[in-house]
């Protein structure tokens, strides 16, 4: 389903938690070199699990990839530790930001460079580079990260990931709990990183609207399966996606009175 030149390929991955709970039932997807790919779906569809299966953070949560494979630049990476993966250029920005609260903003960013071996000079340059993209962080560089705002924390989390010099960044729900304006700002920054530096992005989002505006390609996940995929522009036009993910019915806005009377049945359920 993907051209051979893709940066990341996930082939038919199945994930089981606690040896019994089947969460992913064979997910396949691909991220091209320098592309932005959206992974859409409702709560519990398996977006986060897919990202963690790629970054190998699953094992610490008693989750296990039982079938399938993950390839990065043509090499199998599903048995590597998270830190090996970061070293190869795949880094995850976790849902809920997870900044190091008691460290300062700058210290947070520097922890992102832990796996690097190229010395202080390169790290200092990249720090300035992150500040260039997130000027707000530079102003607050000596503040304790726990006391910064939600938007700033999301910026810290992304900036921290950038400090490892990734080729591919796995962004989990960056819009969570943020004001629409901030969401827009963070997506804009992500896009400029993508355009200027060729950073590939795999983006898990509930907010299909904004995700499909910024992504080039999209996958829709429902209960652990990919039910639909295609170029973002095509997905935006798809009647099912419009109805169930973008909140646009056939005849414009709907009244809440008849919101329950779905006229459509999802075509992929047929």
């Amino acid at each position, binding site marked *: 389903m993907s051209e051979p030149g893709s940066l990341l390929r996930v082939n038919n991955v199945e994930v089981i938690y606690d040896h019994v709970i089947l969460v992913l039932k064979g997910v396949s997807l691909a991220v091209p070199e320098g592309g932005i790919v959206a992974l859409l779906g409702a709560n519990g569809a398996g977006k986060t699990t897919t990202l963690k299966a790629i970054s190998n953070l699953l094992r610490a949560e008693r989750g296990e990839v039982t079938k399938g494979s993950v390839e990065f630049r043509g090499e199998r990476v599903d048995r590597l*530790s998270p830190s090996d993966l970061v070293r190869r250029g795949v880094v995850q920005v976790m849902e809920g930001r997870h900044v190091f609260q008691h460290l300062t903003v700058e210290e947070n960013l520097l922890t992102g460079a832990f796996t690097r071996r190229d010395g202080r000079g390169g790290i200092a340059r990249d720090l300035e580079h992150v500040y260039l993209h997130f000027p707000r962080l530079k102003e607050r560089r000596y503040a304790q990260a726990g006391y910064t705002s939600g938007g700033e924390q999301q910026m810290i989390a992304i900036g921290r990931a950038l400090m490892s010099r990734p080729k591919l960044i796995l962004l989990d729900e960056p819009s969570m709990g943020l004001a629409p304006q901030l969401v827009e700002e963070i997506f804009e920054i992500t896009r400029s990183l993508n355009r200027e530096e060729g950073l590939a992005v795999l983006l898990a989002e509930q907010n299909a609207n904004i995700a499909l505006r910024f992504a080039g390609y999209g996958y829709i996940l429902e209960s652990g399966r990919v039910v639909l995929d295609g170029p973002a522009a095509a997905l935006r036009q798809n009647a099912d996606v419009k109805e169930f993910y973008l909140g646009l019915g056939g005849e414009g806005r709907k009244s809440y009175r008849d919101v329950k009377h779905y006229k459509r049945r999802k075509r992929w359920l047929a």
Partner: protein
Amino acid sequence: MHILYAILIGPFVTMAREPAFLIEVLIGGLLAGVMYSLVALGFVLIYKASGVFNYAQGTMVLFAALTFVGMLEAGLPVLLSLIAVIAVMIVLAFAVERVVLRPLVNQSEIILFMSTLGISYFLVGLGQILWGGDVHPLDIGIPSGPLTVHGILINQLDLYAAIVAGTLVVALALFFQKTRVGRALRAVADDHQAAMSVGIPLKQIWVVTWAIAGLVALAAGIMWGASLGVQFSLALVALKALPVLILGGFTSIPGAIVGGLIVGAAEKLGEVFWGPVIGSGVEDWFAYILALIFLLFRPQGLFGERIIERV
């Protein structure tokens, strides 16, 4: 009335009458407190980096001291023994990570705590098998007689212990604040998962922490052992570190130091000046009462990390 006077005013009158004696007691207390600080430091290190309250810290002090004495008694020179014990403590750190911590990743704190209980019993047993259960005197060549400065007596051993502890503390503070690995250790202490997500390898970090805690235990063990003799009650002395931790805060290195000093000084003063009035043995319980009061009014301790809550 008479009793109130004896408790509330009498001791201070005595202090005022003999200031030189007061200073002597105070210095003795502070220097003893440094020893508590050293043990408390080991607890703080592991608690900060892995969120585990390491019950075995006291036993590690004992085990390190026993191994050191054992090597000396086997005829090894001091320096060689020291290097050998350091190696043993590092091997211990690897073993703890591999056998205990790794299989218990993501378990709740109480389970990790209980696993350290297990480590503690294991180390006591191992120490006993290897080196026997006798009291071993430990002579590290520090003259034991008191030093007289301006008519005030100072125990030389305590003085050296204070110097060792001070050096360790400064070195550790620099390590935590200024180095890449130190920063990673603090990051892990804050959020395991996030630390993993940015590529910090937890296993290595745990080995590093336990190794450092082992070295601190060794320093504490040698200093304690030199003054009390190396014996199994050393592990219990380490329990004095608990009130120190409550006072200073479980997550603060300066807190462990200041807490130790306060506990050391306060219990000595209590023993000497209030002991005659309310019965001796003040030294044994005073620290715990102090800790209880702190738990009521400032549960995070003097320097503990504030719990950050955004609303």
